[in-house]
């Protein structure tokens, strides 16, 4: 397993080397070098902000296409709850489930079902009083990765449970094996994803050695074909196995709401989440029991691989769930099954640290402070680093030079020009003096 597999990648041909993405990246993971953006792999958390902001569509999420269905003998689709929010006048999730089958999947296992089970397990965990509080949701992989590189103190507060998509993958494969008699590897478990972060989790799962999902297809890829097929789906009221609680996970606040407690906080949008994580780290939110964080605005409905406007999608979820049962999936045991949990604990990845040797880190920090004074503080990004401070840091780390700053360069050019004019002035003076001497002779 590669430590840093990412879904977010660059299409070099489309990249003009502008500074939109470097300014927007929440972990300062992008630089522009030699006219092209470059993603620093160890810092990227696959949030997709650069995809959202790139005017040239040079940032892309690497996912599969529907062609992947041919690779397996039997395929199961795992629709994210937010997929249901993409359509107008949907009577129930069943229409989407039926549409996915018409699209070519042999079966569908709704992630919303697994979400209800995770909610039940989380409730039990919180009520047991054994888990550190407040518990931080790990359903958004971008948030989990962010915590891992920037908030080491908060790792122990993360929910130790699988994401609903992972649990759905596991349950779907078990069900398919049982029903078809096929070995697990012949079954393709395909997640219909709202975002690159969840796509990257298949190759780089969090808390698991190997993902239960085989591949992911973006919602925006499935959407146009699904819309057409859904009209052919008939009488689908009884097909869905999920309830209100599970479908609600598709928008911000839904996961926390399913815990049936008011002592929760739900934040969405990566910058807002960073603020909450900072407050958590400073023990400012001690009376809260559960923290739901979604990197995308509005929650998963705001994922960069979605089609519908996230705010409208949120409204659609509300009208969709109105006549649905509160929930349809519960844990039948008091104990939380072991395979609902992560198999290993996350470890802090200090990628922001200047040096592993603290004395050297201090020297570098001093050097950064010295360099910053030379830069104009405009954070213009022309140097290819997102801010003057990060340019100073890049220089100290050996990735850039002072002359990358156009202002430093301009000053140097001025100095050279001054020297040149002074030298040529001296030479001119000598020439005149020599001419005067010639005349006197």
């Amino acid at each position: 397993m590669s430590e840093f597999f990412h879904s977010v990648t660059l299409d070099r041909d489309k990249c003009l080397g502008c500074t939109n993405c470097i300014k927007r990246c929440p972990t300062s993971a992008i630089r522009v070098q030699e006219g092209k953006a470059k993603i620093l792999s160890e810092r990227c958390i696959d949030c997709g902000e650069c995809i959202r902001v790139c005017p040239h569509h040079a940032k892309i999420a690497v996912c599969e296409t529907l062609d992947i269905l041919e690779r397996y003998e039997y395929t199961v689709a795992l629709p994210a709850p937010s997929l249901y929010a993409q359509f107008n006048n949907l009577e129930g999730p069943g229409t989407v489930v039926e549409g996915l089958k018409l699209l070519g999947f042999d079966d569908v296992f709704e992630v919303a079902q697994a979400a209800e089970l995770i909610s039940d397990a989380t409730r039990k965990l919180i009520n047991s009083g054994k888990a550190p509080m407040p518990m931080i949701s790990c359903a958004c992989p971008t948030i989990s990765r962010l915590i891992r590189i920037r908030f080491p103190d908060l790792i122990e507060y993360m929910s130790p449970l699988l994401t609903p998509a992972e649990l759905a993958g596991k349950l779907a494969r078990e069900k398919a094996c049982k029903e078809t008699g096929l070995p697990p590897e012949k079954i393709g478990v395909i997640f219909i994803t709202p975002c690159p972060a969840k796509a990257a989790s298949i190759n780089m799962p969090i808390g698991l050695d190997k993902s239960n999902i085989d591949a992911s297809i973006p919602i925006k890829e499935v959407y146009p074909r699904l819309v057409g097929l859904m009209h052919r789906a008939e009488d689908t009221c009884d097909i869905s196995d999920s309830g209100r609680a599970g479908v609600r996970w598709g928008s911000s606040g839904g996961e926390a709401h399913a815990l049936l407690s008011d002592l929760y906080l739900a934040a969405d949008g990566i910058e807002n989440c960073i603020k909450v994580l900072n407050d958590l780290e400073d023990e400012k939110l001690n009376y809260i029991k559960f923290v739901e964080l979604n990197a995308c605005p509005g929650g998963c409905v705001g994922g960069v691989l979605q089609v519908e406007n996230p705010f409208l999608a949120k409204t659609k979820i509300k009208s969709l769930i109105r006549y649905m049962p509160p929930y349809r999936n519960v844990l039948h045991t008091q104990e939380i099954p072991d395979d609902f949990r992560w198999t290993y604990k996350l470890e802090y990845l200090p990628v922001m640290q200047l040096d592993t040797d603290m004395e050297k880190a201090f020297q570098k920090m001093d050097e950064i402070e010295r360099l910053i004074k030379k830069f104009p503080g405009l954070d213009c990004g022309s140097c290819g680093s997102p801010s003057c401070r990060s340019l100073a840091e890049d220089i100290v780390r050996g990735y850039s030079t002072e002359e990358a700053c156009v202002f430093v360069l301009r000053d140097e050019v001025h100095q050279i020009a001054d020297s040149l004019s002074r030298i040529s002035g001296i030479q001119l003076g000598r020439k005149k003096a020599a001419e005067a001497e010639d005349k006197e002779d």
Partner: protein
Amino acid sequence: MTLHYIVPGDDFTRAGEASGDLKRKMKKLGFPSDVIRKVSIALYEGEINMVIHAYGGEITAEISSSEIDLTLADTGPGIPDIEKAMQDGYSTATEQVRNLGFGAGMGLPNMKKYTDEFQIESEVGVGTTVRMKVYNHS
């Protein structure tokens, strides 16, 4: 290395800028997270105090690999009875400040609790200076 911060006196939303910046820098320097947390919490409490009581002030942070030395100086009204001010829950905060969620009377006690050394000097009408040290055990 030495860092200076100015705490503006009239803006609640800016309290926490100094502790936030120091926290970021300490992470980059590789301090253990419990040391960072102690410094960050103690300094944040100090910043809040400066905003609420002292119309702002100045923070000097001396950081070395062995310890973090914080000096918070203000020219505010001063504290008439330091012993009383150090008691858990003792507060002179106005109703308005309490409504904002501050003024629970845990500021100074927390600063003492989270630091390894704590000194406070104050003169009514002149100002208050708090010195705190957190050792780096690693």
